[in-house]
C-alpha cells in the first residue's frame, strides 16, 4: 500500500479520544510517526491509543499536553524533535463544546471555549510556523457550528468560527515564507463517538443523532474515520495546492 504520509512526523493534539484519536490512528496506519497528546496521554485513553497504533505496526509516542500553555507546547515540540528528528505537521484538534442557552452561559464559559479552542490553535500554529519543515502542514479542527447558528452554541460556535478566520489569516501569512507551509481547516458536522453519549447522556445523544440523520442528505452521522481520511490527505504532499481552505465533512447537512 502506498503511504501518502510515510515517514512524516505529525503532532495531533487532543488525540486520546474521538476525532483526534481517529486522525492519529489513520496517520500512523499510513506510515506517519505520530505524537498523541492530551491531558490524559499517560492514562488509559493515551495508553490504549498508543497500544492500538503499535499493535498495528505503527510508530507513535504519547505526551501530556495542555494546548493552552506555551510551556507545554515547547515541551511537546522538543520531545517530538528528539523522538522523530523533525516535525512535518501539527493538527490542532483539542477542543471542547459547552452547550447552554445564553441566559445560563457565563463569561467564564465563553473564555473557556475561546482559550481551549482558539488560543490552543493560535499557539500551535505560531510554534508550528517557527519549527515546521519545508512543505509542512498546519491543520485546524473547526466545526460546522462556525457556519451555522444553533441554540446553545453562543460560545462554542464563535470559538470555532474564530478558528476558521484564524486559518485564513494564518494561511496568508504562511505563504510569505519560502518553506511553503500550508494552513487549512476541517469543519466536521456531528461526529458520532462514545464521547457524545458520555457527555450528553444516551437519551439526548440519541435524539441528537436521529435529528442529525434526518437533516443529512446522506442520511448518516459522521464517524471519526471520515475526518481522519481528510486529515491524511491534507497532511500529504498530494494536497500541496490546498492552502487557507475550509473543508466541510458533514454529509451535506449544511448545504
Amino acid at each position: 500500500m502506498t503511504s501518502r504520509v510515510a515517514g512524516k512526523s505529525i503532532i495531533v493534539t487532543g488525540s486520546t479520544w474521538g476525532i483526534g484519536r481517529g486522525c492519529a490512528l489513520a496517520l500512523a496506519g499510513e506510515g506517519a510517526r505520530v505524537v498523541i497528546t492530551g491531558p490524559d496521554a499517560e492514562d488509559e485513553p493515551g495508553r490504549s491509543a498508543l497500544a492500538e497504533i503499535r499493535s498495528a505496526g505503527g510508530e507513535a509516542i504519547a505526551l501530556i499536553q495542555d494546548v493552552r500553555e506555551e510551556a507545554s507546547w515547547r515541551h511537546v515540540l522538543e520531545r517530538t524533535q528528539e523522538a522523530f528528528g523533525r516535525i512535518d505537521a501539527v493538527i490542532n484538534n483539542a477542543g471542547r463544546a459547552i452547550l447552554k442557552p445564553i441566559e445560563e452561559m457565563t463569561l467564564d464559559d465563553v473564555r473557556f471555549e475561546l482559550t481551549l479552542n482558539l488560543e490552543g490553535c493560535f499557539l500551535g500554529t505560531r510554534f508550528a510556523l517557527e519549527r515546521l519543515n519545508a512543505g509542512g502542514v498546519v491543520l485546524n479542527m473547526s466545526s460546522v457550528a462556525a457556519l451555522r447558528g444553533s441554540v446553545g452554541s453562543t460560545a462554542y460556535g464563535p470559538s470555532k468560527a474564530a478558528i476558521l478566520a484564524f486559518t485564513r489569516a494564518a494561511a496568508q501569512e504562511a505563504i510569505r515564507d519560502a518553506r511553503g507551509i500550508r494552513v487549512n481547516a476541517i469543519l466536521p458536522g456531528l461526529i458520532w463517538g462514545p464521547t457524545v453519549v458520555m457527555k450528553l447522556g444516551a437519551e439526548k445523544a440519541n435524539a441528537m443523532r436521529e435529528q442529525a440523520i434526518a437533516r443529512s442528505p446522506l442520511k448518516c452521522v459522521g464517524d471519526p474515520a471520515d475526518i481522519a481520511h481528510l486529515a491524511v490527505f491534507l497532511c500529504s504532499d498530494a494536497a500541496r495546492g490546498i492552502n487557507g481552505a475550509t473543508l466541510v465533512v458533514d454529509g451535506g447537512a449544511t448545504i
Partner: protein
Amino acid sequence: MTGRLQRKVAIVTGATSGIGRGIARAMASEGARVLVTGRTAEGGETTCRMIREAGGEATYWRQDVTAETDWSPTVAQARRVYGGLDILVNNAGFAVMKPIESLSLEDVRFELAINFESCFLGTKHGLAALSDSGGVILNTASVASIKGGLMSTAYAPSKAAMLAFTRAAALEARRDGGRVRVNAILPGFIWGSQVARFGEERANALRTATIARTPLGRVGEPTDVASMAVYLASDAAKAITGAALFVDGGIGL
C-alpha cells in the same frame, strides 16, 4: 418630521468616535434617542453635541464594554433616561494588526475581549430589556470575519466569532415567542478615526490599495455603515434576523 426610528431608544457602544459615532448620529437623525457609550468622555460628549446641534437627543454614558459589571447599569441608564430600550448596537472594537510571530497571547485575548466578549455581554444583558419591545441587536463585525488578511490572525478570529455568535443568538432570541432580531454588519475598510493610528503615509497607502481592490472603487465612510444600521434597526427590516450584511464596496467578493 417622522423618522424611521421615531422615539426608539438606542444604546450605541463605542460611539465616541468613528463608525459608532456615525451610527449614533444617523439613528438620532431618524428620531431615535441615543445613549452614547464608550470610555472617553470627550469623544462621547462631542458625539452628543453633534446630535443635539442637529436637533436630536443623546446622552453620554461612560462604559467599558469588556467589564460585565458595567452592563446592567448601562441598560438601566437607558431605561431611566429614555424609558426603555429598543436597539442595542454592539459596535465597540479595536484592531490589533501584527504578523503572527509578533502577536502575543495577550494581544489575542485583548481582541477577543473587546470585540467579541463585549458583544456576548451586551446581548446577554440586553436581551431581557429588549424583549419587551421586540427590539433589535446589531453587531459590528467586519469583512475580516469571512476573509483572511495579513496581520489579522487576532483581529479576524475575534470578528468571525461575532458573526457566529450573531447566528446562534438570533436563534436563541426567537425561542419561546421572543421577538428580538439579531444581525451583523460587516464593514470593509472604513475611513474612520482608527485610521489615524496608522500614520498618514501608511493610511494613504492602505487607502490606495483598498480602492484598487474594491469593485466599487472607493473606501467606505462611517455614514455607509450607519445607513445600514438605521435600516436594520427599523421596521423595514422586520424579516431579517441572523443575517450578515456587507458594507464593503464588494471587497469581500
